[in-house]
């Protein structure tokens, strides 16, 4: 492959000395690749801590969600200003992938702008579009920094956003600015270099922005300086991208990847439909003598119902949590949160992810102190014998769970079809069915339902209202 860089000169930063850069790129690529396999593998393992749930069928509707909601950003457009700002960054991100492929190919083979001679004017067009979108993305990034730090939008300053979540958001925005700066320095220097060394720098045509800025700004600059700027831009670009890839698994920004599977696996049933609990249904059926011939169940230990920890949630609930980018549209629409209650649907999602991460870290440690006391004797730490004495209830309080009106506003608001309500309801089930706890006020309601089949304990007959007949 090194035949492509035959014309080597001794000076380090001359473009013809590609061997060193090529080796460095390949090493970086291997390091980043293996680190990515590890950290994404960890995320997938954490998602699979959740219980199995078969989500399939109706592929047409699922792909429609991916196309409209993830690719098409449909739900972003309920708030028009951030929708456009976000769209700029999103489009710039999507189309930059083409340039990124070229960068990786160039890096591996020691070539320079390998697509340019093949694509001709189309190359000029693509890079020009990338440049124009990058300018729009820069405007959007600055606006987003403004909306988070200078005049913060209400949903960005809720209690759950203090500390890491807001640092995380700013890191990404600053990285975007560095990335855009790198693209423009690379392209501008390249535009001038094309005139100085047309052998090595293939003609790309005039790009929309750097084609004007580059020559105007750098016309008579020293060639070595230009080469340095071009190389620095190229390397910073790819290193920021590599950094991004490794950063995503620990960041809210993972939504740029997970929005797609998450919308595909989103539930298609009406939002009002709660998931059935067949095990409870069978139990009650046999109590009522409606059993379909099954024998009475004998439990060795009392079964647990509902969700206490990430292990009891569906893997989809945990995928939801990793997909959440903490935009807070759910919380901004939540009637409980709007009226000062502690519940914040966004916090529910953040808590689930943090808990999955915590369990994941402990599992990675392999320490036997996380093995459940009953299973101490048999072998290695695994999700099956895991017990650290903690659960989701250490992060999500009963007060939060009890404030929910099940109104589905959070579900409706989420631009990537996350369902915080489903988690709240599973945790309520655990509280009531397994812990026999819950708000005291509900006890008379349950009693009345069991005794008289109505929500209120009332002495009149259910059809008493029919007696008031005016003839």
């Amino acid at each position, binding site marked *: 492959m090194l035949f492509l860089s035959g014309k080597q000169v001794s000076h380090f930063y001359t473009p013809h000395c590609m061997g060193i850069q090529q080796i460095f790129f390949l090493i970086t690529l291997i390091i980043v690749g293996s680190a990515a396999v590890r950290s994404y593998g960890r995320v997938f393992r954490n998602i699979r801590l959740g219980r199995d749930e078969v989500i399939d069928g109706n592929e047409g509707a699922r792909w429609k969600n991916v196309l409209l909601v993830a690719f098409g950003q449909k739900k972003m457009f309920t708030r028009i200003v951030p929708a456009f700002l976000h769209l700029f960054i999103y489009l710039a991100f999507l189309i930059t992938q083409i340039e990124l492929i070229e960068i990786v190919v160039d890096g591996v083979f020691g070539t320079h702008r390998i697509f340019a001679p093949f694509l001709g004017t189309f190359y000029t067009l693509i890079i020009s579009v990338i440049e124009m979108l990058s300018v729009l993305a820069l405007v959007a990034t600055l606006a987003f920094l403004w909306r988070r730090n200078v005049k913060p939008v209400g949903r960005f300053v809720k209690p759950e956003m203090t500390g890491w979540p807001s640092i995380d958001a700013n890191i990404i925005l600053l990285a975007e600015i560095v990335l855009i700066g790198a693209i423009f320095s690379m392209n501008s220097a390249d535009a001038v270099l094309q005139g100085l060394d047309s052998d090595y720098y293939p003609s790309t045509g005039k790009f929309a922005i750097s084609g004007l800025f580059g020559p105007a700004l750098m016309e008579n600059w020293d060639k070595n300086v230009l080469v340095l700027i071009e190389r620095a831009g190229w390397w910073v670009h790819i290193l920021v991208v590599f950094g991004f890839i490794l950063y995503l698994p620990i960041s809210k920004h993972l939504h740029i990847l997970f929005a797609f599977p998450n919308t595909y696996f989103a539930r298609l*049933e*009406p*939002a*009002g*439909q*709660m998931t*059935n*609990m067949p095990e*409870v*249904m069978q*139990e009650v*059926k046999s109590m*009522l003598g*409606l059993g379909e011939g099954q024998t009475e169940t004998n439990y060795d230990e009392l079964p647990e*119902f*509902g969700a206490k920890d990430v292990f009891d949630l569906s893997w989809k609930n945990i995928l939801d949590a990793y997909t959440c980018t903490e935009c807070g549209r759910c919380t901004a*629409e939540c*009637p*409980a949160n*709007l*009226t*000062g*209650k*502690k*519940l914040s649907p966004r916090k529910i999602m953040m808590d689930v992810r943090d808990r999955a991460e915590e369990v994941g870290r402990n599992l990675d440690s392999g320490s036997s102190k996380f093995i459940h006391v009953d299973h101490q004797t048999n072998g290695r730490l695994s999700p099956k014998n895991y017990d650290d004495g903690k659960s989701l209830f250490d992060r999500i309080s009963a*007060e939060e769970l009890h*404030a*929910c*009106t*099940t*109104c*589905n*506003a959070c*579900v409706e608001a989420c631009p990537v079809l996350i369902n915080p309500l489903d988690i709240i*309801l599973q945790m*309520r*089930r*655990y509280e*009531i*069915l397994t812990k026999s706890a819950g*708000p005291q*006020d*509900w006890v*008379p*309601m*349950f009693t009345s*339902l*069991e005794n008289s*089949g*109505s*929500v209120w304990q*009332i002495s009149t007959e*259910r*059809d*008493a*209202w*029919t007696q*008031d*007949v005016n*003839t």
Partner: protein
Amino acid sequence: MKPVESIAEMSGRGDKPEILFWVGCAGSFDPRAQKVTRAFCELLQKAGISFAILGKEEQCTGDPARRAGNEFVFQMLALQNIQTLNAYSIEKIVTTCPHCFNILKNEYPQLGGNYEVIHHTQLLKSLLEEGKIKVAESKSDRGKVTYHDSCYLGRANQVYEAPRDVLNHLTTQLVEMERNRAKGLCCGAGGGQMFKEDEPGDKRINIERTEEALRTGANSIVVNCPFCLTMMTDGVKAKDKQENIMVYDLSEMILKSMIE
């Protein structure tokens, strides 16, 4: 309202109703919601629809228990209700409560209860359009009306337009609150909240929603749910605006405007 027959009485004389009216706990016991129940029966009677109720055989659908987390109580009630409904070979159900509507329509099928379920606002819309219910032409003297979407008819089941279509038959001045349709704000009663005290906070949800309704300058708030009816009525009382604004169910609005 003429006498209302139970399904037991109707079956007793070998007859079958076109539709079963599921009254619900609020519609059966809450004095204010009882008025809605009667208004809706009157509309059905005037439209010449043959209907029956389960009467003493009806039990709570189990919605508040299920949403509170008590699946056992829900399954008990639902399985018994399904036994009753299936024993009478019920095919079609109408409810005046969106919580009953949602659970009968979406959650009873997994337990073996399969029925065609509609909400009364949907039925009333078709009765108006078929001309089975006739309202007076003059719409102007009915004042400004605002419509409050219930969560379980709206977001839960995507029924936003049927009740508005009905209101547009009745008034020229249907005004929307800022948060409407998919963005409609909950009244604060769902998910078992109706049966407990609020968690600590700055404000009650029904007050927040009532203030929004008051800002429209409407004379009437129209709801489709007995719990919204209670919450919004309480909100209006708390704001001491009973003189300015009244809370009605959609069926009451129609009944007021009907030509005999």
